[in-house]
């Protein structure tokens, strides 16, 4: 295994092989959410899991690759939101490194922070590309109400994104945490940053 740190560009093969799987998990999460007709996207579980397992950089790359692949296969708009995915991966990874994924309570905090980050990054993008809307029915209804009351595009757009994204991201992090907890050690150890096995050979 090649040592990996924040500044290093050399990733271990395992970490690189994790990226496409993370993208796949995102995709499957979205599909299951569709099959079960859940009112959320749940399409970032792979990104968040990759960050928990292999750290912020791999998580961030997973996020960006996810949106590139999405853009190429499903929805060209999603290229733009690659920046959001990047930050989701980074924030989760950094918080995971600092020991924020040890209990359900902490996982909720991670979810809230990730959700807020996603909202803060997405809102300017929404304003530039859509005049502030998100394309989600409930969020856009709220957008219209706030616009009519305050005529502040930023506030309206922020709230529009907040009501849609925050619950989604909190649930994504909680689902990922539930899966992460259930993973056997032989899997988590593969990506573990404290793994010093390479010293043996």
């Amino acid at each position: 295994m090649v040592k990996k740190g924040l500044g290093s560009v050399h990733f271990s093969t395992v970490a690189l092989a994790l990226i496409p799987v993370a993208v796949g998990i995102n995709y499957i999460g979205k599909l299951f959410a569709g099959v079960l007709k859940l009112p959320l996207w749940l399409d970032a579980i792979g990104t968040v899991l990759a960050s928990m397992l292999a750290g912020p950089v791999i998580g961030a790359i997973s996020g960006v690759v996810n949106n590139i692949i999405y853009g190429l296969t499903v929805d060209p708009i999603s290229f733009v939101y690659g920046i959001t995915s990047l930050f989701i991966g980074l924030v989760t990874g950094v918080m995971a490194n600092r020991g924020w994924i040890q209990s359900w309570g902490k996982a909720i905090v991670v979810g809230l922070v990730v959700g807020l980050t996603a909202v803060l990054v997405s809102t300017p993008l929404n304003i530039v590309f859509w005049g502030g809307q998100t394309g989600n029915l409930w969020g856009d209804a709220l957008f219209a109400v706030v616009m009519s009351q305050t005529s502040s595009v930023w506030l309206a757009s922020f709230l529009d994104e907040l009501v849609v994204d925050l619950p989604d991201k909190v649930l994504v992090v909680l689902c990922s945490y539930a899966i992460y907890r259930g993973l056997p050690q032989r899997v988590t150890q593969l990506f573990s940053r404290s793994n010093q096995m390479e010293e043996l050979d």
Partner: protein
Amino acid sequence: MNSISLYTERDSIIHHIHPTNKVIYIFASILVPILLPSFAVLLGGALFGLILLLIGKVFKRALPMIGFVFLILLTVIIIQGLFHPTNSVLVFTIGPAAFYQEGLLYGLTITLRVMNIVGAFLILVLTTKPSDLVDSLVRRGLSPRFGYVLNSVFQILPQMMVSMKTIMDAQRSRGLETEGGLRVRIKAFLPLIGPVVLNALTHVKERAMALEVRGFHAEGKKTFLYEEKSYIATKPIQWGIWAVIGLAVIGRLMG
């Protein structure tokens, strides 16, 4: 391999344009309308995109996606027409709803701008095989390992979809409820996705070992298995797009 990609096999000039040029075209479709935000430029750009889609013989494939985006944009025009902060000139009213000129124009600007960008992306996505795009990026200096990561998504996704179907059937046959009230459906999510994830993560190790054995981290110059596809007029098109962007910058500075 590309069963999930939007790429559509056709014989057209657009299909023979270098993928990098299509990427630069996307860049231009975002930048030029920002530099020169006039209706003529916006409308011209959007029409040009549609014409390219027609030449590429992928217009029919593009229509559902354009339609979907347009539906969202319609709500943008309506909401901006009703509530845009600078609204003052009344155009028409429907019942209690009053539509204003400033907001409608603003909504229309956004619509055209998004249509420009979506058109450019659709040209890339519909007329370029993802593996060709990755190939051309690697030839232009993208790390081959990263190229593999991008390409392998297209192999792993179909595998995971099969595994998803198997696990769904297995869990259902064990009595897992996947239909009913919202709570039932939420409760079904983890038992469904959990095994798929575990399965996929276990395969990561095998995949990594298989890659290592094949010299994934080997040093030295990498060669290509396939010759590069031949593309038409790569340099002139590239210069042409840069020239348009350059003209837009000049136009912005002059105006």
